[in-house]
């Protein structure tokens, strides 16, 4: 199946970089990851969850550390399980404490990062995990690409069914509840979906960059969109253009792909924010 994608890529991009299989794999991965991040990012930004997703991204460290403790060769499953449990716990805890959600998240952030670093640095072994910090999308495997394709279908299905409910909750939870929406379960399902996407992308994008990819396309699109449709489509477009441009540029510059993509997203954000300010005279 993937050979067909290779042929399409070579036809669209008749350039040197497109001859390499690892670049074609990375491009396919980006074509699937970028819209997912953009879609989820629209709600992350709308619900002011930027700090939450940052905590989620950084909690990967503890997940990896747990994988190491359990002696797993590939710590992905431990990381995924930990991130899902953590996201559900934060969601639960948010409702139980009177403290502001910033403070609650700050506490989770501190504990997960410190715990992860302490465990991984035991015996000066942290270096071999730095790949998780900056990620390496050029090393994406076929298996990972198939996973991404499956998850994209799942998230699109989820968004088709629950996108409206999630939007109403982001406007006002009580309003949503009065309309019969099960706010707690919807929010829990959303943080689980977010945790799964972030966990799957950590190895490719990097702990330090994953949150930026979630936030920046939506933040840029907010400046330009007049309704939810424009917001979603612009976020996806900005994410895709940044992803593909970042991949190609990083190939020629020899830089980290995740970070290069983020710089493109940031460029879009700056242009959109300044453009909107000038256009609307705000």
């Amino acid at each position, binding site marked *: 199946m993937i050979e067909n994608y290779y042929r399409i890529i070579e036809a669209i991009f008749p350039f040197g970089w497109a001859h390499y299989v690892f670049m074609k794999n990375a491009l396919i991965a980006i074509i699937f990851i970028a819209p997912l991040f953009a879609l989820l990012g*629209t709600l992350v930004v*709308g619900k002011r969850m930027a700090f939450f997703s940052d905590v989620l991204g950084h909690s990967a460290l503890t997940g990896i550390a747990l994988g190491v403790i359990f002696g797993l060769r590939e710590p992905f499953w431990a990381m995924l399980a930990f991130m899902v449990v953590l996201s559900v716990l934060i969601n639960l805890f948010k409702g139980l404490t009177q403290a502001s959600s910033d403070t609650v998240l700050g506490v989770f952030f501190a504990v997960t990062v410190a715990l992860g670093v302490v465990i991984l640095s035991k015996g000066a072994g942290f270096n071999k995990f730095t790949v998780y910090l900056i990620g390496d999308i050029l090393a994406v495997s076929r298996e990972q690409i198939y996973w991404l394709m499956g998850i994209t279908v799942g998230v699109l299905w989820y*968004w*088709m*069914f629950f*996108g*409206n*409910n999630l*939007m*109403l909750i982001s*406007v*006002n*939870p*009580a*309003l949503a*509840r*009065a*309309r019969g929406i099960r706010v707690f379960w919807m929010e829990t399902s959303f943080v689980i979906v977010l945790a799964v996407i972030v966990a799957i992308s950590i190895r490719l994008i990097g702990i330090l960059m994953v949150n930026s990819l979630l936030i920046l396309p939506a933040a840029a*699109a*907010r*400046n330009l*969109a*007049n*309704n*939810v*449709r*424009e*917001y*979603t489509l612009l976020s996806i477009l900005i994410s895709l253009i940044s992803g593909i441009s970042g991949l190609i540029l990083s190939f020629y510059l020899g830089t980290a792909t995740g970070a290069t993509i983020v710089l493109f997203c940031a460029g879009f954000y700056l242009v959109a924010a300044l453009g*909107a300010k000038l256009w609307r005279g*705000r």
Partner: protein
Amino acid sequence: MQNSCAHCCTKIEDLGVDFGARPVLEGVNLHLNCKELLALIGPNGAGKTTLLRAILGEIPYSGKINFLVRSAQKQRPAIGYVPQKLIFDPDSPISVLDLVAASIRRCPVWMGVRRAVREEAKESLKKFSADGLMHRRIGELSGGELQRVFLAMAMNPVPDLLLLDEPLSAVDVNGLSLFYDIVTDLKKEYDISIIMATHDLAGIAPHADRMVLMNRSIIAEGTPAEVFRDKLMLETFQLSLWNISSLKND
């Protein structure tokens, strides 16, 4: 009480709410018939919003809330809810049409709003003089405009019980009279009960069938005129006799 159909009502018995060790509401008993507008008044922190949140099922409570809806005992009636003043980012990209369409149909608004849904949303908004706001972003609306949009949403589908939580806190004078006219029309037109938490004593008095003064529990209850005569009302709001005579609605 006017034109009560006597078959639908909301009965609240011995309701209490605790936040930790602190009781916020205790021993609240209320009986509300349909076609009745009940004004909930009291100082800040009196528990008005908490009572509405308990009725919505948002927070745990002790005691009982029973709904008898059109001769059928239902655990949960259809509740329309208009929240307190909400502040949105000016750059929030949600349009009024998105909000209304998302609340009446399942088809995802991020894929666009179909013509049939758009027409239905327009009809809903039109009843509340808000159809002209359809393509505006919610962050750009004034307090009064936003509350009319929320009211349109709360009334589609027509609920059994309409809860208005200080809906007028961000509404200007023109918006106030429009809002009261709309709520009075709703009461006449539909078989619904309305509970409105408010600080606007003078504005609500001519429109309310009953008034409840609360401060953690119910202090006084009756027609607006009866409640205004209550000694505790004078103490709670530090009203002068002149104020009272202007508020009376015999």
